[in-house]
């Protein structure tokens, strides 16, 4: 089917996500919470574009919006989009002034002036995009999640204690767009989320490459966690 991006005709598959369609056509759109290897959530609202559906115009998160209407018109740089983008980037920059990633985004796309607002205390690099939480869940550990709500929302382990569920795989740190999640590695040990893991050495080269827990998780995932049980229950209900 055909869609129009900034007046340019694109031939796309039905249900393809606008962001993917635009990027493969060479259109530049900023994004933060989106990660190619993870399920999308559309939480950062940086990738918003304006769509025209049968004359009705609205802003949508392009990383989540499936192309379904033949002849859909998409605009990536109308004034409305730019105001929205500057608003979101400005707010993120206010919270994370030290983050090079957000700074770069602001330099490229502009940011609302927030000098009127009081500076945010504490040096927090987290933009609450949730990539780490999704990565942890995708990998299978589910050791971290969001706690609290609103402004106080933060990523942490249960009760902020070192947790046995964590396998020290570094997926969270790997996908973090701002470098908020840090870890240390030295002399065959890795420290993350308040725990120390011993690294297993490669049988061939002898370099430490993964934690024992991580390898166990990959090998044997037989036990079912309460969350999955609930999901199973849901599936059972669904299937009658």
């Amino acid at each position: 089917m055909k869609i129009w991006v900034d007046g340019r005709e694109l031939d796309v598959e039905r249900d393809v996500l606008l962001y993917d369609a635009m990027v493969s056509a060479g259109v530049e759109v900023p994004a933060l919470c989106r990660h190619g290897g993870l399920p999308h959530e559309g939480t950062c609202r940086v990738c918003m574009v304006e769509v025209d559906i049968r004359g009705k115009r609205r802003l949508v998160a392009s990383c989540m919006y499936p192309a379904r209407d033949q002849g859909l018109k998409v605009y990536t740089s109308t004034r409305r989009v730019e105001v929205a983008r500057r608003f979101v980037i400005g707010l993120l920059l206010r919270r994370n002034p030290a983050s090079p990633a957000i700074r770069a985004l602001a330099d490229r796309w502009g940011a609302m002036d927030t000098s009127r607002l009081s500076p945010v205390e504490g040096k927090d690099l987290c933009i609450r995009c949730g990539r780490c939480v999704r990565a942890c869940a995708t990998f299978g550990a589910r050791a971290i999640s969001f706690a609290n709500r609103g402004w106080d929302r933060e990523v942490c382990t249960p009760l902020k204690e070192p947790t046995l569920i964590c396998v020290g795989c570094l997926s969270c740190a790997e996908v973090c767009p701002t470098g908020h999640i840090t870890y240390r590695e030295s002399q065959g040990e890795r420290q993350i989320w308040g725990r120390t893991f011993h690294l297993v050495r490669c049988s061939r080269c002898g370099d430490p490459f993964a934690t024992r827990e991580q390898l166990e998780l990959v090998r044997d995932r037989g036990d079912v966690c309460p969350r999955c049980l609930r999901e199973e229950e849901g599936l059972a209900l669904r299937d009658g």
Partner: protein
Amino acid sequence: MRLSSPEDLELYREQLLRRVKPQRWVRVCAGTGCLAGGSQRVYEALVEEARRIGLDSPVKFQARCSGCHGFCEEGPLVVCGMRGSEVLYRKVRREDALEILLALADDRVVERLLYRDGREVYREERHIPFYALQMRKVLERCGKVDPRDVDHYISLGGYASLARALSMSPEEVIDLVTRAGLRGRGGGGFPAGQKWASCRSASGPQKFVLANGDEGDPGAFMDRSLMEGDPHSILEGMIIGAHAVGASKGFIYVRDEYPLAVENLTHAIREARRLGLLGRRILGSDLSFDVDICRGGGAFVCGESSALMASIEGRPGEPRVKYIRSTERGLWECPTVLNNVETWANVPIIIREGVEGYRSLGTKDSPGTKVFSLVGKVRRSGLVEVPMGTTLREIIFEIGGGVMGRNRFKAVQTGGPSGGCLPESKLDLPVDFDRLTREGSMMGSGGMIVMDHRSCMVDVARYFVKFLEGESCGKCAPCREGLKAMGEILEDLCSRRGRPGDVEMLLSMGNALTDTALCGLGQTAANPVLSTLRHFMEEYREHQDQGFCRAGVCRGMFVARVEADLCVSCGACAKVCPFDAIHRDPSGKFAVDQRCEGCGACLDVCPMGALLPSPRGVRE
């Protein structure tokens, strides 16, 4: 006993109606408001005294509990039935039980417990101005039916609509609801028929119908009263909905802060199952459907459809981006219809009255009635049901009796935290989904807060933004960070820290938040700010530029001044002033000196309204 066909139901109803009716009865309101006022003890005292004076034979006398009448400020309410008339007693205490019963036995009325308004004394509920101008359809049985007795519901015509709907094809039911023009009462006003049709045609291994009873707007209690007072009407609507869309399972999502609603609904479900109105092959039809209750933990955002479904699934109650409608992929990814409890309660009415009957009330685009909870600075507050298209003026001034005391009307806030404030110039606006939205407010679930000139509109906006800041789940950046930023500016404006440009910044942030937020909560969160900016800009300017709050609400942003012509020298103001700033002047009137800190205490106590807020520095 199981009712295995529509004929069974009718036979059962006839049986119930043939039972001997008591000559005299009392009905005690057991809604949350009246219970808090002690109506349980009133009920017990009535039963106890009736036995003592020998009134307790079922032929002579019956005592029942009912749900909410919607006139909670006058509770506990007791209705007495005798010789075809129904007398309403208000503010009844346990000690009044014997007097009420003795009067009832002699067909007399206890005058002192009747409702009065000025010189008028009212015997019957329906004559009281608060009720007289209402049109009770959804709430028709609320306050009359015993919510704990399915037989009572059936004897009042209950479940007849279900039997009728089951004799129709699902498509016919959907067509009826579509043509009747039923729109979602939870706030959005989305056409219910369209929603049902899209769920009907969606494919999935299972379909769900859900009722949203997660009412959380400050000052709103329509859904609670309905769930407590007439739970079967919601169930009946849901079963009809299940038949229409082909669902086999339903959930009612009730916030756990509504324990009585949970209790009454649980009881209703149990009774419906016992009679075979829920379960396998309902009334002998092909429909098998059951309902469970899901109790919410009280997060405001769980009233948002996708967050509500996440919560039912056992995940954190956070919304998700839904460019694919939940009628296609909803609960557990199955086609799902979610309607507000009031919407569901409208369904049996539509089946009973048909398209024309239903459309005879309300406006062309918003047919039917709507329940509002009328609260704030209004003389008569409570639950109000009126046809759509009734003007705000009629609701506030005729039903509500206007503004309390000698204060002037200033604004009405409709639609809860997602709604907005409308000024006096909009009072003749007919209330329906589209008109309110056009003026920057919204219907919401039906909260209606009346404000007088002692309400500061900047402060009101601040209150709602701070409320939503606390309720934002924090998932998307604009809502999490934006509400905090807007809240900060509003706090500054309300405490003399406003700066030039604040108003413009609020406006641009509000518009951007509306555009960028992920869910309905965030997208409407700026409405209280945007609507007050639209209709009360001068007040914002005064806060920002002069540090003046004309309502005398924001502390330290005004000083009190005595209007000498109005002062009656009572001295109430001087007595309450914590700064010793008010003294009698040589003329005998009172005056405020420079020690006034602008706390507003005197403004609240002056019986004449002689104390007025004025800008600081004017007097110096």
